């Protein structure tokens, strides 16, 4: 049987190659999902940790515990603390980054043995830090020795600079505890050997900074433990504190659950529970988990239509193959093979193909995942940014599922065909019935369902963004609605397509040449055979267009929003120190930072002062306060470096600024002042800063949008529900504001030169010792927007899906036409013999391509556009970020469409080319002879 199978496969090698291709692509697409997901999650987890570490200035992957023990017999508690780091790293299975272990005696009085006056009765602590010498530099004197004791038995100690100043100890001095003795009654003597500071490369080691150790004499930990812990502990009050820092760069997404659970156990149930503090990384995990839940369903659902297309492709090709093998099957059957044997034969064949496909698809899937991770935009990859992908257990489960689906798609059609016998074959050739879906009105049903979905989602559109905000992923029905709509509309087109062809035929009835005549007849009579390939084409194109629009819209909107909210390239607000009078009461005046230094920033093209006060207020009726944001700008400079799209405002942005420029006390108000509080142009408005100083402005216009201004603010209440709040904005002149409010801290808005890098700005800040209280950088904001796995994954999935469907479409279309020519070789021979020219046969085929291909392409374009217009606005809400300020714009990039058309056009030309080649090679006499066999 195996030999028969191989022979059969070799005979139809091209079909089998196509099936294999389909299997490989399907497997790769399916497998790429878990691989990408786990890699993207790893990266996301790392980002979350990084964000925390940078924004808080603290290492996030840290567990801190501390215990104080008074005169414990046996010192068991301290011993247990000593064991904690090893216990922690072992149970957690994480890599040690740093361990900061401080053990010390509680503070008691010590005195210098030199009897100097200011060296008596100092309150100090003797302590020890594990692995300290490697992380410290000695400023004067030397580090304690390896033995840790002087020749006369005193404990060698080092002190920090702050301790040196605070206690006034001297290097080379001996100290003795006033009231504390060793267990055997001997004096506790200490010898200061040097002064230390943190070593430059000590990283996150110093969890308690040397500056904070200002009463601590630090000695060799071995000496400390030998003399004060264990059996000696019963004499002393000890404090032991430990910070274990583990390496989050090695953390995998799959570790999150385990570590969360273990951590929970550690500080809630384990024997260390009383000494450990709740670690910060649990917060990191929590915010990571919210992001994950949004992404995983979204990406999976986006893939469904693509997978459905792949399965359809396999189904189509294998059906076509069985169609061709019908004769063989019927011969085998009439020789006594059972239906089961035939199915078994195809099952073996299917297994052979799908398993091969699975083996080849797995590495391709990893490659796909890599590509997904380097997607920058729709159909755009940045291969320098690769993702570290690895096969996970999950990816093998997906692999098996994919292989199984492939197998089903390939074998199921054979069940239908296994029933065929020669007699039935002849009968079925004569039969021409309506397709089952036409009889069931499936197209109408699908359209109805999807339009219902459209209306119900549209009705509660507002809720949708709240749902998303609350961290839930979107209703899968929303995604499915659009696919169902495409399918329904595609089928509906297939229903009416024959009537269109008939209409065209009737219009030109007397003008069609013999070749066109035949092709019309062929399409009218046999058009149903082409329905599957037509549906395939329609789905490919409309899904392609829809996906392109989705991807573009989501991305462009996110980019626009980021750009708009940033306001300009860089915003720096320095730390303004408020002046106090001699009684320490603040005067409301400031030390004004030097503004001229901004001229030295080479990366800056221009800069301007902007007052941005989001704690200003106006008084409403009943003296109620309404918090508003007040901006004070220099209209000319501000205008040259900012921009608001014309479509967002009632008139040109610069006209607003010009109107403002000519009125000294003029203010621009946000539109909601007009819509909610009924302000009119010409009204005057009084606004206060948080020091109760006021300014009165004359309203000269209302703006819906202004650089950096968001009309509403979304957020989460304490109970996890979403809220929306209005933001109010007053834009005034910088000079006017200063004249009324007095000196007011300003931000510096900077427009960068063309090729400026973020590091240039950063270096300038460091070089000029600028203390920054607010720093906005558009470049880095854009970076994080673009690498958000939700956006990137969506883009990636859609791009990959697009590429995959195009490939399938090309292959499927070619196969279909090559088959259809091969089937009709005899007829073409007859036609040629009766005098039809090759070009006329070509005309016939071109006509068929028009009826089948071009019609489908046009229908696909129409359906794609319609679907995009209907469903993208709804879908976009799922991606809108919490700070979405701009209205959604539907983005259809012409170049994407041209690319799509070009690819489709190329495929159709290629198909025609191949057909022409087959046709020209087709020898009339041979073709006729073929029929005589």
């Amino acid at each position, binding site marked *: 049987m195996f030999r028969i199978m191989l022979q059969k496969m070799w005979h139809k090698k091209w079909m089998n190659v196509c099936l294999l291709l389909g299997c490989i692509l399907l497997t790769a697409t399916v497998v790429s999902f878990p691989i990408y997901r786990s890699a993207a999650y790893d990266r996301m987890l790392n980002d979350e940790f990084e964000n925390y570490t940078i924004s808080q200035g603290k290492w996030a992957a840290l567990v801190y515990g501390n215990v104080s023990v008074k005169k414990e017999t046996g010192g068991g508690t301290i011993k247990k603390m000593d064991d904690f780091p090893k216990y922690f790293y072992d149970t957690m299975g994480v890599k040690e980054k740093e361990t900061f272990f401080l053990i010390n005696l509680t503070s008691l009085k010590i005195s210098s043995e030199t009897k100097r006056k200011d060296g008596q009765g100092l309150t100090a602590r003797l302590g020890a830090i594990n692995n300290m010498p490697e992380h410290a530099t000695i400023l004067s004197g030397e580090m304690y020795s390896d033995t840790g004791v002087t020749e006369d038995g005193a404990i060698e100690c080092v002190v920090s600079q702050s301790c040196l100043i605070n206690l006034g100890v001297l290097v080379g001095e001996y100290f003795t505890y006033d009231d504390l003795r060793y267990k055997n009654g001997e004096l506790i003597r200490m010898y200061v050997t040097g002064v230390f500071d943190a070593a430059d490369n000590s990283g996150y080691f110093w969890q308690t900074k040397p500056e904070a150790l200002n009463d601590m004499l630090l000695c060799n930990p071995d000496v400390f433990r030998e003399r004060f812990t264990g059996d000696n502990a019963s004499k002393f009050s000890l404090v032991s504190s430990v910070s274990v820092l583990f390496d989050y760069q090695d953390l995998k997404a799959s570790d999150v659950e385990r570590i969360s659970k273990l951590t929970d156990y550690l500080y809630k149930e384990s024997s260390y529970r009383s000494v450990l503090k709740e670690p910060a990384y649990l917060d990191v995990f929590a915010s990571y988990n919210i992001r994950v839940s949004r992404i995983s369903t979204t990406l999976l659902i986006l893939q469904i239509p693509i997978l459905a297309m792949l399965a359809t492709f396999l189904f189509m090709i294998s059906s076509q193959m069985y169609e061709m093998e019908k004769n063989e099957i019927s011969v085998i059957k009439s020789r006594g093979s059972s239906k089961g044997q035939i199915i078994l034969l195809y099952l073996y064949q299917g297994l052979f193909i799908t398993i091969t496909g699975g083996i080849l698809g797995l590495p391709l899937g990893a490659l796909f995942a890599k590509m997904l991770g380097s997607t920058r935009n729709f159909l755009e990859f940045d291969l320098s940014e690769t993702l570290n992908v690895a096969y996970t257990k999950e990816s093998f489960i997906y692999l098996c599922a994919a292989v199984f689906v492939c197998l089903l798609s390939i074998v199921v059609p054979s069940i239908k065909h296994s029933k065929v016998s020669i007699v039935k074959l002849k009968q079925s050739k004569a039969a021409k019935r309506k397709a089952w879906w036409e009889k069931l009105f499936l197209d109408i049903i699908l359209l109805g369902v999807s339009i219902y979905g459209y209306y119900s989602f549209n009705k509660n559109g507002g809720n949708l963004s709240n749902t998303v905000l609350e961290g839930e992923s979107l209703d899968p029905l929303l995604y499915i609605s659009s696919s169902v709509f495409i399918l329904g509309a595609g089928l509906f087109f297939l229903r009416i397509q024959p009537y269109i062809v008939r209409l065209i035929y009737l219009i030109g009835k007397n003008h069609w040449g013999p070749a066109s005549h035949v092709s019309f007849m062929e399409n009218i009579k046999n058009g149903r055979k082409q329905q599957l390939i037509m549906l395939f084409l329609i789905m490919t194109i409309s899904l392609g267009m829809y996906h392109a629009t989705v991807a573009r819209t989501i991305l462009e909107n996110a980019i626009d929003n980021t750009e708009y909210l940033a306001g300009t390239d860089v915003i720096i607000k320095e730390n303004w120190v408020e002046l106090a009078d001699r009684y320490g009461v603040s005067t409301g005046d400031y030390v004004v930072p030097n503004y001229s230094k901004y001229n030295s920033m080479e990366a800056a093209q221009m800069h301007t002062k902007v007052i941005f006060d989001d704690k200003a207020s106006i008084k409403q009726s009943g003296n109620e306060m309404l918090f508003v944001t007040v901006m004070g700008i220099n209209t000319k400079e501000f205008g040259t470096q900012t921009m608001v799209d014309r479509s967002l405002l009632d008139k040109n942005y610069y006209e607003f600024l010009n109107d403002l420029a000519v009125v000294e006390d003029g203010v621009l108000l946000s539109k909601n002042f007009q819509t909610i509080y009924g302000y009119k142009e010409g009204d005057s408005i009084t606004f206060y800063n948080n020091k109760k100083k006021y300014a009165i402005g004359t309203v000269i216009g209302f703006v819906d949008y202004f650089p950096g201004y968001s009309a509403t603010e979304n957020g989460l209440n304490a109970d996890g529900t979403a809220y929306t709040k209005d933001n109010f904005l007053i834009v005034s002149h910088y000079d006017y504001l200063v004249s009324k409010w007095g000196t007011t801290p300003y931000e510096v808005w900077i427009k960068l030169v063309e090729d400026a890098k973020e590091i240039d700005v950063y270096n300038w800040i460091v070089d000029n010792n600028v203390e920054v209280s607010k720093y906005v950088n558009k470049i880095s904001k854009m970076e994080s927007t673009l690498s958000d796995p939700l956006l990137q994954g969506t883009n990636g999935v859609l791009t990959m899906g697009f590429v995959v469907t195009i490939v399938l479409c090309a292959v499927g279309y070619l196969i279909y036409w090559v088959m259809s020519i091969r089937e009709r070789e005899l007829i073409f021979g*007859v036609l040629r*013999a009766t*005098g039809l020219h090759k070009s006329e046969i070509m005309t016939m085929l071109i006509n068929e391509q028009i009826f089948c291909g071009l019609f489908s392409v046009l229908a696909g374009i129409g359906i794609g556009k319609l679907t995009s217009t209907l469903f993208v606005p709804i879908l976009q809400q799922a991606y809108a970020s919490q700070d979405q300020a701009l209205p959604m714009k539907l983005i259809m990039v012409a170049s994407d469409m041209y690319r799509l058309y070009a690819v489709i056009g190329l495929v159709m030309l290629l198909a025609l080319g191949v057909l022409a080649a087959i046709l020209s090679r087709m020898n009339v006499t041979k073709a006729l002879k073929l029929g*005589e066999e």
Partner: protein
Amino acid sequence: MSDFVIKAQGVTRVFPVPGGEFTALKGIDAEVSKGTFAILKGRSGSGKTTLMNIIGTLDDPTNGEVFINGTAIKGLNEKQRENLRRKELGFVFQSVSLIPSLNAFQNVEFSMRMAGIKPSKERDKRVEECLRLVGLHNRMNHMPAEMSGGEQQRVAIARSIAHSPKLILADEPTAELDSQMAARVTELFKEMTRKEGITVLMTTHDVGLMGAADEIIELENGVRIYG
């Protein structure tokens, strides 16, 4: 000008085959005059189809010359040959050669379209007339798939004569038919020569049909035998 519809002179056809050449026809001479029902006889492999293809302008002889209605085929370009085939020749093939998407009427009408006869009442009449001639005028709306092999072949004959060609070339038209139907088809061809003044050249190896022929040309291993 002679009144021979077909005139072949020393027709030789050599095919290149792996490792040499194969001579399918060796110096065939043949003449068929107008209104004749001629049978080209011979076993399979004797060169019948090769000769038919050459006469049907589908193939060229390696040596020799063929005249159709006095026109030398050799001098004709592709376009002229197609015109000749469309207007002056009719073909009937061994196996079902109807266009599957057209019904009987449309199949017959098709050859008239090919010959450039514009749609008209007369054309429709002619189609019916041809179908009546083969006894299928009451089945003209049937699709090829709904007819038996013999019926299909009769439609093919109706098609081959619809545009009133000078010469019908029928290559083994009876091979797939039972003897009764074969006799009927042969009879039909003979009738055509009488009623329409058409010349018919039919190949067959069925000895039982020879009686109907006005003239028999017999081939054996690519050589004409006169017997």
